[in-house]
């Protein structure tokens, strides 16, 4: 079927298999930041925004995104770069495989809960698994980033 999906502001007018999930659509059209980590909707690696809301692209039918706006990490690079620098300065990223989904969740948190407490931030980000870091440096980076009030 045909879909018209705006990704990071650019319109993708494409024929897709009817049962294609958004993650496969995005990766097919070059958005490699979107990672797959599981088949059971548990890991959060594939997090993107649909109409500014963070969703699991592995569980979102591409057909449903027709007429909607999708944002991947490639679409929020200026913010991602700033947060990435904060993370790097605190030794908060290791293998990087969870990073895109994590950064999308952090930037969504910033928009949804202004000035969250550490506990609120932790809970909001609970759906983003990481096996490398133990989460401590990630949370430090998040709170530091939010404190510094970047737009």
């Amino acid at each position: 079927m045909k879909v018209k999906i705006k990704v990071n502001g650019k319109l993708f007018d494409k024929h897709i298999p009817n049962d294609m999930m958004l993650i496969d659509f995005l990766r097919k059209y070059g958005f490699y930041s979107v990672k797959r980590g599981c088949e059971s909707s548990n890991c959060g690696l594939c997090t993107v925004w649909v109409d500014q809301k963070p969703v699991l692209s592995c569980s979102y039918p591409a057909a449903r995104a027709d007429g909607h706006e999708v944002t991947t990490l490639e679409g929020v690079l200026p913010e991602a770069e700033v947060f990435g620098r904060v993370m790097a300065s605190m030794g908060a990223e290791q293998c990087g495989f969870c990073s895109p989904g994590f950064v999308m969740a952090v930037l969504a948190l910033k928009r949804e809960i202004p000035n969250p407490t550490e506990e609120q931030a932790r809970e909001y980000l609970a759906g983003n698994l990481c096996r490398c870091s133990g989460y401590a440096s990630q949370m430090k980076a998040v709170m530091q980033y939010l404190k510094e009030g970047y737009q």
Partner: protein
Amino acid sequence: MFTAKTYLLASSLEEAYDALQKNKTNTLVAGCCWLKMTRKRIWTAVDISRLGLDSIVPDGDTLQIGAMASLHSLETDPAVKGFAGGILSEAVRRIVGVQFRNCATVGGCVWMRAGFSDLLTALLALDTTVCLYHAGQMPLDEFLTSPVKKDILTHIIVRGGQRRAAYVSMRLTETDFPVLTAAVSLLGEDWRVVLGARPGLAARCERAENALGTGDRDAAIQAVRDDLRYGGNLRASEAYRRQVAGVLLARAVEKLAGEGAAE
């Protein structure tokens, strides 16, 4: 992952319902989190996300929640947060993650009738009516035990916003399926006691409700242990669930007595 020969973005409930009936394999696509873990071979996947079924409408003591309202919207909607001590918001808080809860829908959860459902446990502690496009309205407890017939759950109506309520669960890790869930609600002398994830479906315990009505907490604790069926699975044994059922009931009652459902 499922396969689908066609994907229908339905433009009306009638169109969606008719499509469902056309082929045995035709399936409704709600949140899709569960569906995509199956290997179902579907002829037509029926998508109802364009029918405005995601609204949450308060009306006095009542909440009308559309089937496509996301679980996360239950956490953010002010009407839901203020309803029955915020028990519905509390119940969904620990389910996997925010991005999961932005996909998973109220209708999908209710339709699934899963034993592990936090939401069903909380809904059963209130007066919930399930609204189906074809079969009409029925109380939640009736829906939970009715045979599945292809239909579209369009919305649920939850009454009891004035009730005091509390929700607790026992989980091995914080965002895991619950090992056991418990919800209580109270209006005047009218208690509701619900235990879920037993691992069976959420169920009320009448003797516990009566005992709490007479102020006998110990008898209520014993009642949930004696009267409800528990079972074992990967996460816990029957004996463990039975024991913890009493503990969770006591905690839910304390929470209700203390500060309602809000933490």
